[in-house]
């Protein structure tokens, strides 16, 4: 292949990727730019979409990227005038943080056991784990509900946090990751007289850092966005996380929906950017890159 041809192919690839990226990024950009419109402007532009406007009005609703006048009024409204937004935000934090931390602890320990310890039935047990992971969580929702009911956890965060902590994905990810740690390291530590726990703490854990980071990132995104579990397990409106509240906010106040969405995305985007390299590294090393 000549250099020129290679150049052309690369250009096409770039154009293709840019187009895909644009399609994926467009809603995000739209949300961000519209969050700087005034409530009034939002209502004028998008009212026809929601409030039973005529078909022709709906057809003529144009998507706008550039605000007529940039204003922070939506953010002001969301952050200052609606304490509910803040409440639901902290609800989300209260749900997500324990799950992530729990998953990291359980995932590392169990992953280490599955990867580096030889005990009878290990692979069979792991196979069960895989099965659980492969099942869509909607399938396990009903058993989860029944167990939560038996444990008296209904309408409490425990009903969501505990299944989250023991989710099989974390174990699977870190097991795969720790499989990549050479057995020679373990043997060396053993020869030096260290027990399993020491081996775990001083060898496996530092080496698994990128994997833990990747798990935290993926788990954060997953749990920050959860909708079904809170709706099912939490009956009280004021205990719902932001993800559920966000779906309702558009009904009452379309004008602030964009700002609320931007604020909703912000922690995810920031944390994702922060741990981006670990994520890539972690997934590559665990061998589940796809």
């Amino acid at each position, binding site marked *: 292949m000549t250099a020129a041809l290679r150049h052309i192919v690369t250009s096409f690839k770039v154009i293709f990727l840019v187009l895909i990226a644009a399609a994926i990024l467009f809603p995000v950009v739209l949300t961000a730019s519209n969050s700087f419109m005034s409530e009034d402007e939002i209502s004028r532009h998008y009212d026809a979409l929601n409030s039973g406007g005529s078909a022709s009005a709906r057809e003529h609703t144009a998507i706008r990227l550039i605000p007529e006048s940039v204003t922070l009024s939506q953010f002001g409204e969301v*952050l*200052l005038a609606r*304490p*509910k937004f*803040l409440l639901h*935000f*902290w609800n989300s934090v209260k749900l997500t943080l324990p799950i992530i931390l729990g998953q990291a602890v359980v995932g590392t320990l169990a992953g280490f056991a599955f990867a580096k310890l030889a005990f009878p039935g290990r692979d069979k047990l792991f196979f069960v784990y895989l099965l659980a992971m492969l099942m869509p969580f909607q399938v396990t929702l009903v058993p989860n509900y029944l167990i939560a009911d038996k444990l008296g956890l209904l309408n409490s965060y425990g009903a969501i946090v505990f299944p989250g902590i023991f989710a099989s994905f974390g174990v699977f990810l870190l097991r795969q990751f720790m499989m990549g740690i050479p057995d020679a390291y373990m043997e060396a530590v053993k020869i030096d007289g260290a027990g399993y726990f020491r081996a775990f703490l001083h060898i496996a854990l530092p080496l698994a850092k990128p994997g833990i980071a990747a798990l935290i990132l993926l788990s954060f995104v997953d749990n920050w966005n959860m909708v079904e579990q809170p709706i099912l397990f939490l009956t009280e409106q004021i205990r719902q996380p932001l993800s559920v509240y966000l779906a309702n906010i558009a009904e009452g106040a379309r004008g602030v929906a964009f700002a609320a969405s931007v604020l909703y995305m912000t*922690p995810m985007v*920031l944390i994702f950017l*922060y741990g981006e390299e670990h994520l890539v590294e972690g997934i590559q090393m665990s061998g589940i890159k796809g």
Partner: protein
Amino acid sequence: MQRRKKTLRWMIGLFFTLLLALTFLSNTIQGMSLPKVSVEKPETGGLDLDVSGEGFLQSAHTAQLFPEGDWKVEKIHISKNDRVSQGDPLITFDTSSTKRTLEDEKTRYEQERIQLEKMADQLKMLLRSDDTTGVDNLKRDIEMQQLDMQMQQRKIGDLQKQITEGGMLTSPVYGVITSLNAAEGAAAGRGQPVIEIADDASGYQFSITANSDDAAMLRIGDKAKVHLDEEPRRSVEGIISEIEDEPEGGSKKITFDLKDANLQPGLKAAVSITSQSKSFGMQIPKSVLEEDNNGYYIYTVSEKDGPLGAAYYVSKTYITIKDENGDTVVTDGLMPNEQYVKESSEPISDGDRVRY
């Protein structure tokens, strides 16, 4: 790469700190933008019905005095608003014209007496003759003359009485002169009253206007203390004599009768009657009442545990009005401890969060 991470770490920290701070301040911020209301607890009990007002005394009856004849006024002894007793001289008339008439009538009587004597002499002469017809005729003439003289005598008597009694107009009653239609030197006509006297004996009355609801408990015959605007101030007992609907509706005219010596027409009288309605319930000022298709309602304040601590909300509470007066209603449909909104800094509606 390290710098980017540092920036991101800062941004994450900043974001969460900002939201934490806003959460901390959220009640304060919300509080500032909420409508401020002032609330009150309703008083329990019957409705105070307060009727009060002022009026000017008028006599119930006025005596009108007419002159006895068409005379000139010689002297007026009183002036308007004077208090007079029975028999007090009021006006002296110049009766000279009537006196002249009296003299004339007396003269005419004398003439007729002489004529009668003449007729008696003629009769004596005729009796001596045999003219029986002439005698009969003359006898009848004499009888007629005698009748004329009796009439003349009565006329004289009338005139004499007129002069003695009418020459001086005196007051027939105790009272106050309310009108004087005479001037010294001017003639007073027989047809119109020269003096009107407010008759003490008939009593005085005055009227006030009161809200119909407030006056609902008043009955004719009820007694009330009436304060008179006099120096020194004093009060007398008044009796309600009349309660009438005012033509414009919604109010009533209440008339009080006063029976007391030394009252003057035109005196300012004030009355204040406080009574209690029979209905028992919560008292609420009319100013806070609102009305919609479902009836009257007020806004009550309730405390709810909001997302971020306790919050106060207003809610519509429908009430039934049992009784009302000018500015207050008695109602039920309210708990004794419920607080109602008396005033708000902004218009409020059902379910609004407020501060107070």
